[in-house]
């Protein structure tokens, strides 16, 4: 049996093609499915193992990043049924499957309550992603340090990562200090922005490009199967994606973003097939 991945597209997603490419390079079959196909009931999440929520600007981020997109998933009914895509998603999560949201996908997960989903509550929002301290969009590559004790399935065995951020609303903020301490104590803060030399989490601009609390760039839920991050792993799956590939001949052919997708595919092969 094959590992089947899905990327939801439409209404302003932009990165569906490169996310699908990353999934395929990692060994999964991958369909790019327009939201209209899900709402028409012709496709459903139940047929997949790995859900990807790609970067972009859902509905232009007009009501705040991913807000209108979250509202659609929560309230638009799938034709011929009484359920929403969000209902399918809850079933998907309960089945122990994997979800990764990148950038706008991460914003969507946080605003739907899928992350950090403390205590297994996947419906209540307890953190947010808001405007960068700079007040505008920024495209910049960032060094990330991985929490080795994190339950995150995707980063298993990884220590340092280097990906681009490309967002205007990437500042991570927990609802309160209590939420932050649970995130930190349970090692849910999977990746943090760090200084390139020492690898220490940093609040210093531009290493921390948006002013995220505790330098948090990405978080997972308690199971480690739901993961979201602002930096784009799918943007670094080949050597030539690296901004300095022309001056670093020793870079491996494969980009480190691919490792996250390989971890996902391996997990599914072991646990879900």
């Amino acid at each position: 049996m094959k590992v089947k991945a899905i990327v939801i597209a439409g209404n302003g997603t932009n990165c569906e093609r490169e996310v699908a490419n990353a999934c395929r390079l990692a060994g999964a079959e991958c369909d790019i499915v327009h939201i209209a196909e899900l709402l028409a009931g012709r496709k459903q999440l139940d047929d997949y193992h790995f859900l990807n929520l790609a970067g972009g600007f859902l509905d232009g981020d007009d009501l705040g990043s991913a807000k209108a997109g979250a509202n659609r998933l929560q309230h638009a009914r799938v034709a011929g049924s009484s359920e929403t895509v969000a209902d399918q998603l809850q079933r998907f999560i309960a089945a122990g499957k994997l979800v990764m949201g990148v950038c706008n996908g991460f914003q969507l997960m946080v605003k739907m309550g899928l992350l950090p989903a403390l205590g297994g509550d996947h419906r209540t929002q307890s953190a947010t992603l808001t405007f960068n301290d700079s007040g505008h969009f920024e495209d910049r590559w960032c060094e990330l340090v991985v929490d080795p004790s994190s339950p995150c399935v995707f980063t298993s065995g990884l220590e340092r990562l280097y990906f681009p951020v490309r967002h205007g609303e990437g500042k991570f903020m927990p609802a309160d200090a209590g939420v932050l301490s649970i995130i930190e104590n349970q090692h849910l803060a999977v990746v943090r922005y760090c200084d390139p030399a020492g690898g220490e989490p940093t609040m210093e601009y531009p290493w921390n490009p948006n002013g995220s609390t505790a330098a948090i760039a990405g978080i997972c839920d308690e199971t480690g199967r739901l993961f979201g991050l602002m930096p784009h792993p799918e943007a670094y799956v080949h050597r030539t994606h690296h901004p300095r590939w022309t001056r670093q001949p020793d870079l491996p052919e494969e980009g480190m973003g691919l490792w996250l997708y390989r971890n996902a595919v391996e997990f599914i092969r072991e646990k879900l097939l």
Partner: protein
Amino acid sequence: MAWRILAGLKDSVRDARGERVRREIREHLGIDLASVRTIDIYTVDAQLSEEEVQAAAGGPFCDPVIQDVAINRPLARDFDILIEVGYRPGVTDNVGRTAKEAIQYLTGRPFLAGEGVYTSVQYLLKGKVDVAAAERIAAGFLANGLIQRWTIVPAADFDRVRGLPASIPKVAVAAQQAAPVQEIDLDVSDAELMQISRAGMLALTLEEMKIIQSHAADPQVQAARRVAGLGAKLTDCELEALAQTWSEHCKHKIFAARIDYEDTITGEKLEINSLFKSYIVRATRELRERAGKNDICLSVFKDNAGVIRFTDDWSLVFKVETHNSPSALDPYGGALTGIVGVNRDSFGTGMGARLLFNTDVFCFASPFYDKPLPPRLLHPRRIFEGVVEGVEHGGNKSGIPTVNGSLVFDERFAGKPLVYCGTGAIMPTVVNGQPGHEKRAQIGDRIVMVGGRIGKDGIHGATFSSEELHEGSPVTAVQIGDPITQRRMFDFLIVARDRGLYSSITDNGAGGLSSSVGEMSQDTGGFEMHLDRAPLKYPGLQPWEILISEAQERMTVAVPPAKLDAFLTLAREMDVEATDLGHFTDSGYYHCLYHGNTVTWLPMDFLHEGVPQLRIPARWVPPAVTEPQLTSPVECVEILKSLLGSLNVCSKESVVRRYDHEVQAGTVVKPLTGVVNDGPSDAAVVRPLADSFAGVVVAHGICPRYSDIDTWHMTANAIDEALRNYVAVGGNIDHVAGLDNFCWCDPVKSDKTPDGEYKAAQLVRSNQALYEYCMAFGVPLISGKDSMKNDYQIGDTKISIPPTLLFSVIGKIDDVRRATTMDAKTPGDLIYLLGVTRDELGGSEYYALHGHIGRNVPEVDAATALARYRAVNAAQAQGLIASCHDLSDGGLGVALAETAFAGGCGIDVDLRRIDATRGLSDDRLLFSESASRLLVTVHNEQRAAFEAVFAGQSCACIGRVTAVPELRIVSLTGTMLTVASCDELKAAWLAPLKEL
């Protein structure tokens, strides 16, 4: 009833948007506020229950983690003065549209006709600010009076219980019109004809009005009109259709004109029958013939964009547009509309193409301009900010990487900023068994309009941009693009394309339906369109307004009747509006109806061929420019820092980072490169296909300064600059095509333009050079555009921009892994200067620094340059080039500094080793802008192989890359001319635009 839903950040949360506004108010207006906080407001004008409004307020409209929300009560407190800014009626409100959709999902019920959501923003100002200052802040920074309105409330006057009342910017429907279609009597005097043209914003000349007058008076025409049910007088719809079709914007009358050219130096006299045909089309035709089976062109000039070969299975599409006039009035909306507009052009080429990249080139006056501004002009800094933000939103939200661009500064661009936006795309060579780059509407095909709705926005855009900016420039020409509606439409149309559901497609841009349907119907020879069937944003539009509205995000598609159901069903499912408006015919007539009554009955040939040819005098008298006498400096560090810190040379990183330049994961050479990702790349390389290493290379050249000496050389240098940038990153010089975008000041001699003969001569010389150099370099032109009225005239003040040609190139690199970047790589590498340095500082940055123009403009020797570029390609293919950087503004000195600090290295060079003409002083060697030169670094062990490739060419090893980050330059006398810290040079280069 109307509900006001307010969402504001909790007190504990930092308001980054407010802080940015505070900073910019200080920069723009010099008003220092203690703080600015913001509140988002949704005015919901719809029949909803209290529970539904609460669900919306607590759901999609607020972020409960950081925001408080209120319904029909204020959130504002702890401020000195409040400014609320909302849109004027009818202006595109993207957030309002999304908010309306969100409520519909929530309630499961569509809004009724006339219901809507309108957004506004409250700015809470704290500090020493009175109503007058708040007025300045609102008018001078927060809002643009053309599209927005504002309310100012001092804290003392603020109703703390109820807040501000709901205000609904709904378009008021005019009282019942007497007759929906007016007839216009053209049997009048010449003066009255011109009055009709002016009052109607038709931009038609007297000669054109008289041709229309005699058409209407023709008894045969009148007989045909009677049969069609029309009177002898033309309708407003007909006159508008003619004005759009015959506008300079659509018809390019200046490029089609008969020009009498005289060169007073050579005595040559020339009658040119159309610059476009004589130079542009001819170059491409001759080059295609010469190339034979190696011809890379697939579709040139006839479609929305040009198409060239890429791989066996894929073709490339490229188009560059300008959006100058709208950007002068509303920089944000104008630029946003510019980028989404050119995206539609490339998308709508052939049977439809997937968008790959954007380019943008802006020409502004200095953002630090500190002289009084003539009336109606916005401050260059506001234009800069607005345009950058507009393109940022347009490009980023469209999911298209902005990979290449420039910022060019000259005081004269205060009169009209130039905003060039380009879009590259990729299409399958074959779509459903037919060539992807071809299309043809068939008789009987349905005319289907897809995408957004029609409003009064953008009416007269085509005719407006055909005039200079004057007092009466219409505000309806300003509009705001909606990237998301467009994105949905593109997602839908690509599926429809692959399912074979349409036979032709084009964009609705300038001239709206009138132009798109009018042009597409040339395939069949006529059409019948029902204007009353077109979906409107609000009621009350006149038929002529529906016909010519330039409301955004619309495409026109020809759908075979048998496929109409499938097409409309797919559209509905994908949330895209598509409307059947009529069908294509072979009647020979441009036929529109409104509620069953004919409102236009124009012969197609009169519409498309009836416009008279303009006749323009052109006389070349070279300007009286001379070479300045400069004393040679004893050291060059300060000069070099000044040049690096000049606006045209300095780092554009603050702008580049605001654009997503790598979405789609194909950008292999990014705009920023080097050891800390901030060196200035010469060009971009994009790998569009995940299963191939073939790459697209895109670059451009632009040098308006040289126009002050001779537009011939301005043009030659723009072409050469584009090609050397292209080659620098690895573009194949034998697989490249060009796009010419002319932005000129009015070149037609008249009372308003007494120096028209000179400006027309500049245009002729530019076209002549374009032909000569495209032929010499073997670069076919595939697309282009001209914008010919870039003047400002109010009262006695006239500002004309310098004649500016943007030359963009698109081509191929066989394997992106062979691309080269501009940063020095390894200490010990050798530095080569390719090409001869001459006494060519006319129009240079160095002379500009000293307040001079000069006479010795760089001259391009295309044959030598072409051999050099081919050799560079050969060396790149063999992996012999470690870095390659073009020499342009600021010459060798700037190129050395950029190469060094981008690589985090130092450089030692010896000026005595430069291949130069005799007698050049140290400063001239360093700052000459001689064309076709490249600075290359080569690993020491590859020296022999590299030099072998350049045997017989100008190729001088002038120094070495060093580990110490210093630029050390040995003078002609052997002394140390310059020892500069690369960190200091870089700091000077980074400084000017860092905070913008």
